[in-house]
């Protein structure tokens, strides 16, 4: 066992996380399932699956395809709606000593506002605005790939948010820094990235796409270099805290993101291969700190 002399705490827009490790939205449900594999008390925060104003059915199956070192998903934000979420999932998560980050989905500016307004009265710690889901036709990524729209939706939503607002960016853009500046300008208190890259896989025997939706979001270890580059660029462009994600499955991966400027890190697809991935990442970060005598991650954050 490593002695916990060092300080793992990180601060995201005034909310203190006991350590920098959270979960990537949509890969961890609301923590119930993986809570049977890891002690949720050990996580800095749990970021839950995207919630919308009303229940969404999501896309048809097949929704999952494996690709080399990664995967595609076209879940399409299936969720039971914000009321069910507040009723069932917040009380569950509040049993644990961890922060709650709620990922918000919407098809229009007014839907985003409606969900955020509802959540602003709920017992949660941070809001993560998902303007970057490639799997829904309206809303989602159409907001995240247009500078003006990204600015507008952030600004509108910010008026309703009582908790700090993190905006989650899409990597499917030419210049990520433009979008990052636009959302910070609109009032974002933090940025998380990356959401999934738009991808595709074809079954050559059936001569059909594997996903019923034809295209889907690409994630997992294979996307890490792209994610890291974007975190690096955004960290230089804006001064709000960043939650970095995309292919993180070890402590070393997480340290790379922190060196590139991330305040916290989220573990997503890696959970599917290793249900203990979040804790392994946390342990890996601690080991690195011990090895190099680091007291606080502030010492190395954004060094690159």
């Amino acid at each position, binding site marked *: 066992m490593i002695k916990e002399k060092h300080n793992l705490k990180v601060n995201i827009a005034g909310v203190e996380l006991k350590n920098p490790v959270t979960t990537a939205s949509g890969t961890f*449900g609301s923590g119930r399932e993986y809570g049977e594999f890891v002690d949720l008390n050990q996580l800095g925060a749990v970021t839950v699956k995207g919630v919308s104003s009303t229940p969404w059915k999501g896309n048809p199956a097949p*929704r999952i395809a494996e690709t080399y070192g990664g*995967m595609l998903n076209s879940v399409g934000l299936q969720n039971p709606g914000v009321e069910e979420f507040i009723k069932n999932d917040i009380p569950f998560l509040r049993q644990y000593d961890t922060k709650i980050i709620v990922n918000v989905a919407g098809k229009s500016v007014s839907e985003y506002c409606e969900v955020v307004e509802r959540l602003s009265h709920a017992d949660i710690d941070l809001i993560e605005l998902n303007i970057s889901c490639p799997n829904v036709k309206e809303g989602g990524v159409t907001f995240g790939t247009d500078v003006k729209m990204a600015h507008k939706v952030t600004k509108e939503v910010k008026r309703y948010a009582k908790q700090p607002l993190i905006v989650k960016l899409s990597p499917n853009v030419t210049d990520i820094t433009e979008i990052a500046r636009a959302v910070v300008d609109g009032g974002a208190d933090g940025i998380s990235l990356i959401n999934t890259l738009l991808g595709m896989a074809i079954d050559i025997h059936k001569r059909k796409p594997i996903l019923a939706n034809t295209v889907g979001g690409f994630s997992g270890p294979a996307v890490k270099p792209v994610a890291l580059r974007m975190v690096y660029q955004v960290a230089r462009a804006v001064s709000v805290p960043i939650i970095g994600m995309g292919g993180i499955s070890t402590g070393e991966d997480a340290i790379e993101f922190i060196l590139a400027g991330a305040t916290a890190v989220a573990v997503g*697809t890696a959970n599917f291969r290793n249900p203990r991935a979040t804790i392994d990442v946390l342990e890996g970060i601690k080991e690195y700190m011990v090895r190099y005598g680091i007291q606080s991650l502030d010492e190395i954050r954004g060094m690159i």
Partner: protein
Amino acid sequence: MKEIKHALILDNQLIADNIYKMTLEADGIAREAKAGQFVNLYCKGEAKLLPRPISICEIDKDRGRITLVYGVVGQGTKEFSTLKAGEKIEVLGPLGNGFKIDESKAKNIIVGGGIGTPPLVELVKQLKGEKEVYLGFRSQSILLEAFKVYGANVHVATEDGSEGFKGNVLELLKKNNAKGEIIYSCGPKPMLKAIAAWAKENEIAMQVSLEERMACGIGACVGCVCKIKEKDELDWQHKKVCKDGPVFWSDEVVWDD
């Protein structure tokens, strides 16, 4: 806490063209497992990232073993087929809900298709009463002896006629004028859909084990959904095959594709 186990492979042998039977020492899984549940098998490394869901074919609670029967269809199952007795494999389970065995039924019909046949072996082993097993294959049958050992009457259909009845398993059910109080079934979706229609016509309750592409296998990612009725064909919900299934009642399923 639950965890992935490194299970010892006791045996891993070719039992038919491209089909392998693997026996694992997996005490915890064997103790808990029910007929119709599955396990996640993991490949080495991260290139093949996602678990492969494989049904539990037989459970040996006394010796703490499970057997799996799998077809080699892609990279993952190919890797499994190269593993030797004495090596270990990462496995998580048991997962999902198994068949709901109804002991009040004296006459059971069991219908399997192709590589959907394996989980029916443990089911037949546990069922009491009469067991009429109908199996459909493209050309080569598997596991017939296993069913016979557990007291089933086995009827085989092959598409090319190389074994048993030439045709599909539904035609064989009809030809034999099969009678039963309940049907348990696992196989390709078109087969399940056809048998479900026949079961409905004949007013026989039927359980089906469905398959879908999965990521987590434990209910967290909402990747593996099927359409399950709330009230009717138009009023349905996407349910998780891994967590809510894989076994459902056939009249709950929206059989639209």
